[in-house]
């Protein structure tokens, strides 16, 4: 929630499908100007076209969040536009499917998981810090319950999300003086392509669609940013508690 004139702007990574597309849609319907990224240019453009059809202003830039070139291009575009109110670091790398146990985890794959899930979100915050600070913006890092539970097979992905959770919490403290708020959100199990890849060949139709998180996003995006900063929220939990 921000006061003042001018359009509010948001960047969403991994916006071409699943949860990222749902978050993009909530922001678009709330009147945000959007810059969306994802690796798949076709699906990304389809989401952008749908949101434009609903009256939103959308820029779509295809690329890999771990690619410094993409980051620099998006950073340039965002800085030219002005203040950035929301950054959603949603793009995530699950790792090999089926999920390997840690004792056999191929380390090059783990390197990729960490680059996408830990280094990239931090790099995007670094890249977009100035426009975020000038809007008293909110950074949303998408986490997972795998970050806290220790599910067999989820050690690579889960440990990367645990690292992301601590980055979020630390950034919230470090960036408070700049007026930037940072939260971490565990969306819960969802019927998405990523979840299916974690359970190849299994029926995951008992998991809810990502749209089940819409009420949570409506809540989070309308809280005073400072009241939620440093929090770790579970979108499907029965309590969303403000931090202060």
């Amino acid at each position: 929630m921000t006061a003042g004139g001018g359009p509010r702007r948001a960047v969403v990574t991994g916006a071409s499908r699943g949860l990222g597309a749902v978050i993009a849609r909530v922001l678009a319907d709330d009147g945000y100007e959007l810059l969306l990224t994802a690796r798949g240019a076709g699906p990304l453009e389809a989401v952008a076209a749908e949101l434009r059809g609903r009256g939103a202003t959308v820029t779509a830039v295809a690329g890999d969040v771990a690619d410094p070139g993409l980051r620099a291009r998006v950073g340039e575009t965002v800085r030219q536009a002005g203040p950035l109110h929301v950054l959603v670091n949603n793009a995530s790398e699950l790792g090999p499917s089926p999920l390997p146990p840690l004792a056999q985890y191929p380390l090059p794959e783990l390197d990729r998981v960490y680059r996408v899930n830990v280094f990239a979100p931090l790099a995007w915050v670094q890249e977009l810090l100035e426009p975020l600070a000038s809007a008293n913006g909110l950074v949303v890092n998408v986490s997972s319950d795998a970050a806290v539970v220790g599910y067999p097979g989820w050690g690579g992905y889960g440990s990367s999300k645990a690292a992301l959770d601590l980055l979020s919490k630390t950034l919230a403290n470090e960036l408070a003086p700049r007026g930037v708020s940072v939260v971490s959100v565990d969306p819960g199990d969802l019927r998405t392509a990523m979840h299916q890849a974690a359970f190849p060949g299994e029926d995951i139709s008992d998991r809810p669609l990502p749209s089940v998180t819409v009420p949570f996003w409506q809540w989070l995006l309308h809280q005073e940013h400072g009241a939620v900063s440093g929090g770790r929220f579970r979108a499907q939990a029965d309590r969303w508690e403000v931090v202060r």
Partner: protein
Amino acid sequence: MTGSALQPYSRPPLEADRTPEARGLARDEVRLLVSTATEEVDRSFLDLPDLLRPGDLLVVNESATLPASLPASGPDGPFVLNLSTEFGPGLWLAEPRWSESRPGPLPLPDGTPVEVAGTRATVVARYPGIPRLAFLRFEAEVERLLADHGRPIRYGYLREEPPLAAYQTAFARVPGSVEMPSAGRPFSPRVLARLEARGVSLARVVLHCGVSSLEEGDDVTGAPPVLPEPYAVPSETVEAVARARRTGGRVVAVGTTVVRALATAEDGGALRASRGFTRRYVAPPATIGSVDGLLTGFHAARTTHLALLSAVAGEARIRRAYRRAAEAGYLWHEFGDVHLILPGTAPPG
């Protein structure tokens, strides 16, 4: 346990179709059914101070009721828009209905502009899994709209149209509910004075009631979808509960909303101050460590309320009390009679 498992009575209960005042009673003169683990006793609400003990704590809901029903019109003509819950400035979860007596869902796709009391609003998203509810973004200040055009949400069993004041309890301080937290309604200045003289103290929480949930329970878990509602449990209340506990007093929740707020603020059995949104569903086998007793109205059998009552007092006891209440002609719903559930077997007062 599903709602249908709790059809406790042999005859349909009587509905309060008017306020107690319209029935010739003062607010505090409604009937009070007292139930303990072993028996039910018929009393008047005026007897409440004698039924409680010095050191007992009543926890009340300070939420005030909004006139949340607004005239609206969309592509298919006029409809009634019942607001449910404010998620943020200008953003409300709401229930568009064909009319007061005819629920939706209405064909209002995302992005549909609608007119609400002469101002513009936009449907931004359906509530997931509950097509009768939608998020709406308002361009006008909603507080103003409600003050100028809102009426209290009213259900079909009411024969009159009570004014907003009839929906406010003695504790109402923070506007935000769209349905009255009705267990607090019978409290009057004279009853409050006698409670104070008796040594019974008060503590406060806030839970803003949204529109009633009508949806059936999930086939697998029996849990119905519970809408997120704003709540706050302040540290003074956490301290008051701890103090009552320390000194042997009983904690009596005034209304199911208070039980839900306290249950939400419990972490691993310990109560701590918190605020935010809750969609906590309280049902057996869950127990609520902070609550010993409950003052509440009589609720429709197929509701989350009855599951909550069973979590407080056990299903068999609630079933027995409801059968008795129906047979003895207690009045149901928000303007009806009330029910005091006390722990233990001691015959009341």
